[in-house]
């Protein structure tokens, strides 16, 4: 192998014939990628769906391999030629299948294999010493491959690295993991070119930097190839005679219209924003499905087998519609989808364009989309999003620095592969764009953490995971530590899940064979164990009491109880579940869309674009309360039930409102208002308290002074920080991942991460993992910058429009109907406890 003389890669006759036989011409961007490959350059290809992205990426390596395999066997390179990384293993498998076709038809003799978590162990072992020419895999598998001693042999001759759907992974923790793997590959295989494939993004330069190795103080970028845009999508907003609800996310009013839209096309995808929304709309559609159209359900909590079945049926064209969440946002090309329906707010123009791109994968025809708002606020957002998409404007996300927890994981993997010294490690790490600016001292602290926990109290030298050799290099300390690393690799930390199993209530076991075990819950048999329905978030199960009914997998279930790590439920005939699932949006409203929504609201001239019932609602708001001017923020205070409410409408997006909610509750606590909780959505924030807030000085409450102090205090005790810590600690390897179904030790054997967080915070507040947690919180979950901008905007006199109302306002109605999940600690909690205790006292005294 000689990297200075790239193989000639003009289109050989066999390829030309193959193109011609299909009546295909080579596209401009495909040719440009070929030219860049010839000169050995890395490139980012930005192209719409249906533009032949995959072929563009693989054509150069296929041609190289063709030449290579034509040549004398003695000169052949050993090891991998091309590495393809996809965020989805299903996509990797599908692309492999698509590559097999040209390879077979042209008799190239190229070996193409996939490697995912599903690949049999023997095959995985074989792939390491006898690799294929092209390997298609995932970021996690790359990390695992790099953690073996033979990684140098495997990747040494690598010529091309293809990163698919790069836009979907680049700015995430998985992207950090992949970037660190690429940094390592840069030193094992410096000759390998990188090719990134991406949908249209707001900031392609960030992806261009991500693709190529960075050098300290010298920014580098891959070349950019932009394919011709496809036909613009056609977006419609549902026109309906029905009443659009004021609140909620069910969209029940629109189901007949949605059913009609599904009937009118060959196949449709119905996207929703949350699992529970998927459940609810699936059930609602089936109640209307007189013709028994094949309509399926797909979301992340369903068992893998169920999801695969749906995907297969879709591939075979057997389904008329799938109700799905972001699980089907990326993935294999199904070609024949005629219509994408978005139920609920689009949240961002880029995400929405990705979803719309799932329909009609032909470049010259428009994708068809139908937006269905589920409530009146969402109508505003749908109108804003439709305008943005028609203008083709992407909304960018804020770049986040590389996660220190991911780095800690990588460092252990690095030690598993071979001993490393600090200089080399630092060079490799800073070659990865997300870590390009990391200082050396932080890297050393992360290594110290990976080795011995990094505690000021040096207690664990004897239990180290990385051992320091005499020459100063680090290596993995034991097989056990390596094993632990391999079991825990990856950055996706699921919320703790509980296995949900169906049982027949007190019934007898049906069927033949071994009788299923009688299930005992709290010592009492409650029925017979049945099949595994799926996984449910632990917090959701914990709020249920036996007898409560809830929706799951398209069916209403009666909760029967819990035993060890499983929850049990029986089917019921009831149509309406008693316990509503959490309906809050999973994705925050993008800054870009939020500002468009704000402008739309403030300008009554534009209300003519809105359905009559929505403009009527806004007119009513103008009559009963006020409509704020563009530069103003409306604050309303009113009593309701035994509580006092404060509602404000910054229209700054959920993240900023959540941050503001934390700040306000903390300040209200100080003002002795005894806040009970707050609820933030994309449009507004509501705080409720036991005290009356109508006479407060709003400019004081919303002051932009001392914002940092207030938040620090709040954050120190917040659930948000604890949840983030749990994720960081898991990724960094401080606590073991829970592998559902493989838990040897009971839950009581684990140390609760909240307790670890509290103890560490008290005894070593500057620990690297707490630093990682704080960085994550401020970069991701808390949109501090956006909230500060808001507070500055409303600082001048007259910018806060405060209305004291005797009752709830039209705009506030939707807010009252959404239930807050973010609870706050502090005084109000104590009041609640006292309340129960007081009742007890009365009984005692009475």
């Amino acid at each position, binding site marked *: 192998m000689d990297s200075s003389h790239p193989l000639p890669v003009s289109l050989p006759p066999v390829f030309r014939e193959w193109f011609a036989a299909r009546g295909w011409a080579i596209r401009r961007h495909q040719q440009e990628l070929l030219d860049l490959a010839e000169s050995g350059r890395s490139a980012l290809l930005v192209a719409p769906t249906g533009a032949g992205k995959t072929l563009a990426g693989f054509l150069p390596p296929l041609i190289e391999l063709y030449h290579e395999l034509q040549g004398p066997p003695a000169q052949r390179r050993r090891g991998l030629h091309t590495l393809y990384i996809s965020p989805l293993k299903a996509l990797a498998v599908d692309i492999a299948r698509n590559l097999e076709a040209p390879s077979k038809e042209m008799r190239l003799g190229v070996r193409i294999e996939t490697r995912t978590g599903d690949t049999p162990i023997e095959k995985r072992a074989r792939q390491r010493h006898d690799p294929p020419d092209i390997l298609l895999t995932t970021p996690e598998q790359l990390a695992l491959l790099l953690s073996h001693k033979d990684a140098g042999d495997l990747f040494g001759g690598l010529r091309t690295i293809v990163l698919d759907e790069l836009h979907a992974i680049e700015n995430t923790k998985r992207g950090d993991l992949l970037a660190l793997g690429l940094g390592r590959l840069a030193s094992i295989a410096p000759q390998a070119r990188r090719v990134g494939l991406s949908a249209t993004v707001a900031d392609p330069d960030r992806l261009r930097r991500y693709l190529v190795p960075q050098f300290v103080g010298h920014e580098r970028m891959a070349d950019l190839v932009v394919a011709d845009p496809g036909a613009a999508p056609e977006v419609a907003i549902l026109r309906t005679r029905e009443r659009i609800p004021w609140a909620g996310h069910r969209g029940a009013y629109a189901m007949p219209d949605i059913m009609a839209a599904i009937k009118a096309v060959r196949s449709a995808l119905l996207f929703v924003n949350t699992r529970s929304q998927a459940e609810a709309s699936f059930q609602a559609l089936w109640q209307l499905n007189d013709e028994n159209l094949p309509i399926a359900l797909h979301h992340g909590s369903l068992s893998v087998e169920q999801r695969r079945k749906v995907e297969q049926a879709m591939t075979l064209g057997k389904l008329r519609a799938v109700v799905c969440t972001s699980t089907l946002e990326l993935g294999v090309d199904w070609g024949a989808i005629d219509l994408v329906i978005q139920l609920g707010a689009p949240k961002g123009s880029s995400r929405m364009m990705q979803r719309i791109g799932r329909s009609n994968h032909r470049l010259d025809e428009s994708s068809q989309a139908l937006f269905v708002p589920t409530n009146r606020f969402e109508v505003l957002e749908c109108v804003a999003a439709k305008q943005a998409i028609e203008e083709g404007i992407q909304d960018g996300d804020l770049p986040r620095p590389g996660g220190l927890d991911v780095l800690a994981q990588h460092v252990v993997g690095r030690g598993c592969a071979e001993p490393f010294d600090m200089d080399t490690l630092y060079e490799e790490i800073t070659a990865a764009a997300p870590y390009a600016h990391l200082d050396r001292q932080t890297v050393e602290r992360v290594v110290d953490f990976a080795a011995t926990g990094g505690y000021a109290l040096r207690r664990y030298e004897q*239990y180290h*995971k990385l051992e320091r050799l005499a020459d100063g290099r680090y290596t993995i300390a034991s097989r056990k530590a390596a094993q632990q690393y391999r079991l825990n690799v990856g950055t996706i930390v699921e919320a703790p899940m509980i296995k949900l199993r169906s049982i027949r209530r007190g019934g007898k076991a049906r069927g033949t064979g071994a009788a299923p075990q009688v299930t005992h819950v709290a010592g009492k048999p409650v029925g017979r164990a049945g099949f595994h329905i799926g996984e449910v978030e632990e917090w959701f199960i914990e709020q249920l009491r036996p007898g409560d009914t809830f929706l799951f997998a398209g069916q209403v279930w009666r909760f029967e109880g819990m035993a060890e790590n499983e929850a049990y439920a029986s089917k019921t005939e009831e149509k309406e579940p008693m316990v509503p699932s959490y309906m809050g949006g999973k994705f925050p409203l993008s800054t870009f869309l939020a500002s468009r929504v704000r402008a739309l609201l403030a300008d009554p001239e534009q209300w003519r674009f809105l359905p009559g019932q929505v403009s009527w609602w806004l007119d009513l708001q103008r009559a009963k309360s006020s409509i704020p001017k563009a530069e103003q923020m409306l604050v309303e205070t009113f009593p309701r039930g035994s509580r006092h409410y404060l509602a404000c409408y910054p229209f700054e997006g959920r993240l900023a409102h959540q941050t503001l909610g934390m700040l306000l509750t903390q300040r209200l606590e100080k003002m002795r208002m005894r806040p009970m909780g707050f609820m933030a959505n994309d449009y507004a924030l509501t705080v409720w308290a036991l005290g009356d807030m109508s006479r407060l000085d709003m400019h004081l409450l919303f002051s932009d002074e001392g914002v940092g102090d207030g938040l620090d205090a709040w954050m120190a005790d917040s659930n948000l920080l604890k949840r983030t810590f749990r994720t960081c600690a898991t990724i960094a390897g*401080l606590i073991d991942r829970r592998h559902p179904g493989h838990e040897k030790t009971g839950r009581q054997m684990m140390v609760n991460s909240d307790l*670890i967080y509290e*103890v560490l915070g008290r*005894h070593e507040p500057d620990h690297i993992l707490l630093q990682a947690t704080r960085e994550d919180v401020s970069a991701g979950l808390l949109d501090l910058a956006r909230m500060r901008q808001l507070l500055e905007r409303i600082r001048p006199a007259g910018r806060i429009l405060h209305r004291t109302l005797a009752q709830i306002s039209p705009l506030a109605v939707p807010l009252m109907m959404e239930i807050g999940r973010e609870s706050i600690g502090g005084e109000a*909690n104590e009041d609640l406890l006292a309340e129960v205790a007081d009742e007890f006292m009365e009984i005692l005294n009475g």
Partner: protein
Amino acid sequence: MAEAAAAGELATALVNGAGLVFDRSGAAWWPEERLLVVADLHFEKGSSFAARRGVLLPPYDTRETLARLEAACAVYRPKTVIALGDSFHDLGAAGRLGIDELASIRALTGGRDWYWIEGNHDPKPPENLGGWCVAMLACGPLTFRHLPQQGDQPGEVAGHLHPAARVTVRGRGLRRRCFVTDGSRLILPSFGAYTGGLDVRDPAFAGLLAPRFHAWMIGQDRVYPVASGKLS
């Protein structure tokens, strides 16, 4: 008793006739005997994860637990302290204690009568740290042991189960460590910094308490009595 608790000062209850104060730390105080009792300290639980499983948890749990214990002793100035077993997380725990922690423990056991009750984690508590190791201890109307015994056991004060309770008030669930007593028997919450809780509704508690009992839930500044019927 009612007035005191309502005033937010002391949480007091009668257990088999003995008047006990439930402290926020998780310790129970018997003023009449100047006796402080704590359960399930689990010293060096953190380092046991490092030693056995290579999981390097913050090695500060013992000093955190000791700091809470020192604070309780400073407030109540007990003549006698009883640690109700599982004081040491495993048989090697004492060997892993740091110099500072060893000094703290010796200072605590030195100034008063100190009893280490045997637990299932520490059937043989270390003997070089001061205090006496006993299987159980009877004192007036109360009997102190680690594992609660089945059947009617008036006056039993035990640990082992790490009780915690949940109440739902106005749609919000609160879960807290708690003391549980039916007036006859008392089970203490776990005191150790890395110890979790087990819901009092768990089958493990079955048969130990009368149908009506109280969970004394540990709040931010107070301990709140909640009747068993109000737990969720």
